[in-house]
């Protein structure tokens, strides 16, 4: 008889995580479980610790307490570079491309950490998602616009064929046209089976594509819920989305 085990638990399970820089905690006691195939959007006012939470998942902060599980594996404090082969790819907010490498080289570098990744197939997949990049593949990434760089950065992360994609404010500083495109792309990326956790400043648009939104306030978990439910929540809207009607 053939039995197959289907992993049913959350893909990412954060338990009581406190972290910061040095001995100072920026986030404390965060609990968050992200299901497979979910788009999780983390929003909150400036200084709420959104980016710190994401950096803590990448071991780029000092972990003071708590645990991060990726599937069954404890990845708390695992060196950043070792997360990629496990299936976690990330895009930082600024300085997100290798400026002196060409677009194609940036993408290629994304495959290096994962043994046995089918590079030609990944190139095809990324160029399908971002057709503009194919035309610019020989250009140094440093010569691209902010929106194009963001695509190179996300493309580079996808080249590692990750199961979890972490995005730190992917639309920061982008024009409204690009903003829409990036959000559409994130939905497309999820369709390919990738779980997405993203921190966003443009909370309204981001929550619209979120399966689950999480609001952080002062480094603590404030409320979580379906993206549209949060948008409809009066208190959330008033306090964190700059008031106004849900659109």
């Amino acid at each position, binding site marked *: 008889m053939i039995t197959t085990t289907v992993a049913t638990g959350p893909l990412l399970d954060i338990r009581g995580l406190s972290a910061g820089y040095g001995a100072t905690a920026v986030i404390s006691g965060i609990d968050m479980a992200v299901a497979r195939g979910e788009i999780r959007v983390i929003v909150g006012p400036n200084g709420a610790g959104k980016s710190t939470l994401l950096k803590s998942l990448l071991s780029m902060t000092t972990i003071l307490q708590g645990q991060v599980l990726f599937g069954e594996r404890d990845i708390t404090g695992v060196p950043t*570079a070792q997360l990629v082969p496990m299936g976690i790819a990330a895009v930082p907010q600024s300085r997100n491309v290798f400026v002196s490498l060409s677009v194609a080289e940036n993408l290629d*570098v994304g495959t290096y950490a994962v043994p046995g990744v089918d590079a030609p197939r990944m190139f095809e997949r990324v160029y399908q998602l971002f057709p503009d990049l194919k035309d610019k593949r020989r250009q140094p990434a440093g010569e691209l616009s902010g929106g194009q760089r963001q695509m190179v950065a996300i493309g580079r992360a996808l080249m590692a064929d990750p199961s979890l994609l972490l995005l730190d404010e992917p639309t920061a500083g982008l024009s409204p046209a690009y903003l829409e495109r990036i959000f559409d792309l994130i939905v497309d990326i999820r369709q390919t089976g990738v779980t997405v956790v993203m921190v966003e400043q443009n909370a309204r648009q981001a929550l619209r594509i979120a399966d689950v939104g999480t609001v952080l306030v002062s480094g603590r978990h404030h409320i979580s819920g379906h993206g549209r439910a949060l948008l409809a929540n009066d208190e959330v809207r008033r306090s964190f989305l700059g008031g106004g009607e849900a659109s």
Partner: protein
Amino acid sequence: MIQFINFYLIPALALGSIYALGAVGISMIFGILRFSHFAHGDVMTLGAYGTLSAVWAFGWHPLAALPFGIALAVAAALVADRAFYRPLRKLPTIYAVIASFGVALMIRSLVQLFWGPQNQVFKSGVRAPLVLFDTFRVSSLHLQAIGITLALALALHWFLSRTRTGRSMRAVSDDPDLASIAGLEPERVIRATWIIGATLAATAGVLAGMDTQVHANMGWNLLLAMFASALLGGIGKPMGAVAGGFLIGLIEELSTYPWIGSEPLVSPSYKSALAFGIMVLILLLRPQGLMRGRLL
């Protein structure tokens, strides 16, 4: 004109190629580890002595024995990194710079201890010059040095642009944090940097030793010109360092040519001061160097 080529231009390019090979390592180490490696000249010396021992033991031509010198220089660089630079990696880079002075002194003392303080030669005797087209009388050694350097520069360019390790090195040089996020192991890239830097330094040491003599201070004496070359090309850019090395070599040697009248323009005893002067000028006027880009 013939005289100019025979006695000034070719020797200048040969000297420049030695500077170039040393400067590439300095430049790459700076680009990836972000510190000035003052022991680089002594790694070069060690490469020359390692080769010398193999020449003594097997009676081979120095270039055939070069792999022994390279192995010794690479081993020394990796040991120095593991023992002295790696523990200082997270601290401000000035600690590693000072440590590299210490490593320089250690290597030099060990060289004197093992090989003695006296000067050595790979091969004694006068070498007849190579006569080309009945007019050019040049040292075949100089042509070898220039040819080897150009070939190594081409190979390095290919390596950095085409191979995984080369691209990883450029990525780390560009942005070490992003490189970690992309899953590149920084220590692997650092190891590759030492291996390449020490290989080129050992080659430069042997070329320098074949041209004159092998002695414990040879690399240290060349260090300043190599730093000037690396700065001239833009620190962190190996191809810039190659160009910078040739330029510094040309400027130093050609400054002694009797451009005006029959006397050397600059007395040969001052020519090494020119490298200093250029280095200071570059730092003041164009600290990013003459070339654009990073690591390529």
